[in-house]
């Protein structure tokens, strides 16, 4: 099964049990808007942790009706995050979302050794794009979290992402390991890592997916361009997941898709006990809503 667009993602979540989402430091207008919409559309059951007065003020000025919503008053930002994370590690909720707090502070709590959400896995960013010019959604990792992943990191990033895609219904997602070229070039580490990841996949050292790389961006997403180059690959032209060589390539691709290709995007952090919605202030409310959808679908 593949997802064609964000509506397919929504269909995946609809009708299932509603996941509990904790919005940490909830006094944040943009996050609240998306969370309340997801609540009204029966996608999640939110718990707002933060400055109760601030939350009510935002809701009043935006005409959000939150009667019946559970709010835990914790005016201190750091404490509200700690409370949120502890509720998750004690299994009281399924999704963590960032409100009015910096990403670094939130992640510090997530990684807390005694009460955090560590699993032993690397944390990685996973983004899902709906682009008009591609026949299905395409996942991209890691565009925001790991700066210059080593081979070991890349293995962990692929494993996180594949497990997520598996939960979204992809039995054997096709993973393209991106390079500037599709050839192996000793001077380009990304192409060497790509070759190693392909071999590890062949040898069942990375499972539940089909990996090929290096593939240049055009070969990865266009069968025609792969055929022109004579590339024989199960992945070329039919990629479900693009693995980025580093954050610079990833971040530029991500922003190009959003700004130039008007892509819709949903993104979450993987590798912790639960999916984390960690959108930035500049993301649209739609992107935040879609990210909540993705987190709900990815949640076990």
């Amino acid at each position, binding site marked *: 099964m593949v997802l064609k667009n964000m509506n397919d993602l929504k269909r995946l979540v609809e009708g299932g049990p509603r996941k509990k989402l904790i919005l940490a430091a909830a006094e944040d207008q943009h996050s609240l808007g998306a969370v309340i919409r997801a609540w009204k559309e029966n996608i999640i059951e939110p718990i707002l942790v933060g400055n109760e007065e601030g939350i009510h003020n935002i809701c009043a000025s935006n005409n959000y009706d939150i009667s019946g919503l559970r709010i835990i008053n914790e005016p201190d930002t750091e404490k509200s995050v700690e409370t949120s994370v502890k509720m998750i590690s004690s299994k009281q909720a399924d999704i963590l979302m960032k409100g009015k707090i910096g990403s670094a502070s939130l992640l510090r709590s997530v990684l807390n050794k005694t009460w955090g959400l560590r699993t032993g896995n690397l944390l990685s960013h996973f983004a899902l794009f709906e682009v008009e010019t591609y026949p299905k959604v395409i996942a991209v990792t890691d565009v925001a979290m790991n700066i210059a992943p080593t081979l070991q990191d890349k293995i962990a990033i692929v494993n996180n992402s594949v497990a997520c895609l598996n939960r979204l219904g992809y039995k054997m997602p096709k993973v393209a390991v991106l390079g500037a070229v599709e050839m192996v070039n000793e001077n380009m580490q990304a192409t060497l890592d790509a*070759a190693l990841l*392909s071999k*590890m996949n062949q*040898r069942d*050292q990375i499972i539940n997916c089909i990996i090929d790389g*290096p593939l240049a961006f055009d070969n990865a997403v266009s069968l025609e361009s792969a055929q022109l180059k004579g590339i024989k690959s199960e992945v070329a032209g039919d990629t479900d997941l693009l693995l980025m060589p580093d954050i610079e390539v990833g971040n530029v691709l991500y922003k190009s898709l959003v700004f130039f290709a008007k892509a819709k995007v949903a993104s979450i952090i993987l590798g912790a006990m639960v999916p984390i919605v960690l959108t930035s202030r500049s993301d649209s409310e739609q992107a935040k809503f879609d990210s909540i959808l993705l987190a709900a679908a990815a949640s076990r």
Partner: protein
Amino acid sequence: MIRNLEQMEEKVLALNKKHRVAVAWAQDNNTIGAINNAVKKGFIEAILIGKPSEIKKTCESRGIDYRIFALVESHNEIQASSEAVRLAKTGEADIVMKGLVGTDKFLKAVMDKEMGLMLPGSVLSYVCAMEIPAYHKLLFITDPAVIPFPNLDQKVAMARYAIEMAQKFGIKKPKIALISASEKMSRLFENSVDYSIMCKMADRNQIKNCIMDGPLDIFLACDKKSVEIKGVETPVNGDADILLFPSLESSNPFYKGLMLFAKCELAGLIRGTEKPVIVMSRSESERSKYFCIALSCLMA
């Protein structure tokens, strides 16, 4: 397709060509015996460089008529080596062969920057065809003689030489197994890293005309039953034509062990030179030396 060394000999005879072989320091018994055999079969003419008196003595002791050879006088093994190389360089000989001279002295002449036989930018390596009674066809191995610890570039060169030789034996797309202790990719085993990169290069047609897989152990490379038992998916499928070894210390005992214990015969050749260069261990049998001469004619 040539399946054993006698078929190789037949193929050389069918070429109906006489190659001129210059032998450096030629007075040893096995060399003269092998050369005599090849001259009598009609596929070579021999130029023996060394001490004429000793050459004649060896011939007489074996009842060989020395007048069927051209004799060139030389006073020491270094001079004899240079002379053999010079004859090839000037076109007076087609093939160079090492007699009783030490391999290092002989190769020094071959590799001399101005007077030697190296192709520009090429890697000097060694490939040999082994006839093993327990295997259903010839098995080519590289490199049991020249490169102690090949790096990636040298391994790629070794693979290309072996493929080229196998093709001369009528194997259009030889199966090449990159040999290790296990089939897994591990960063701790540098060779498995190189092998994974090479497989991708073969995928992308950067190494042409072969079916390549590795790392593989010798069982997975040469025994279908082991492939079934282990359940490893490999295009080589226990039917390797070529084994590429990670080091001289692994390949050299492999071939010597087979010669000593498994009644293996072999024919080997230096690669990377303008003209074929025959180098073999002084202790090798006359029969093996004869096959080496025939092989050099096939490759000339």
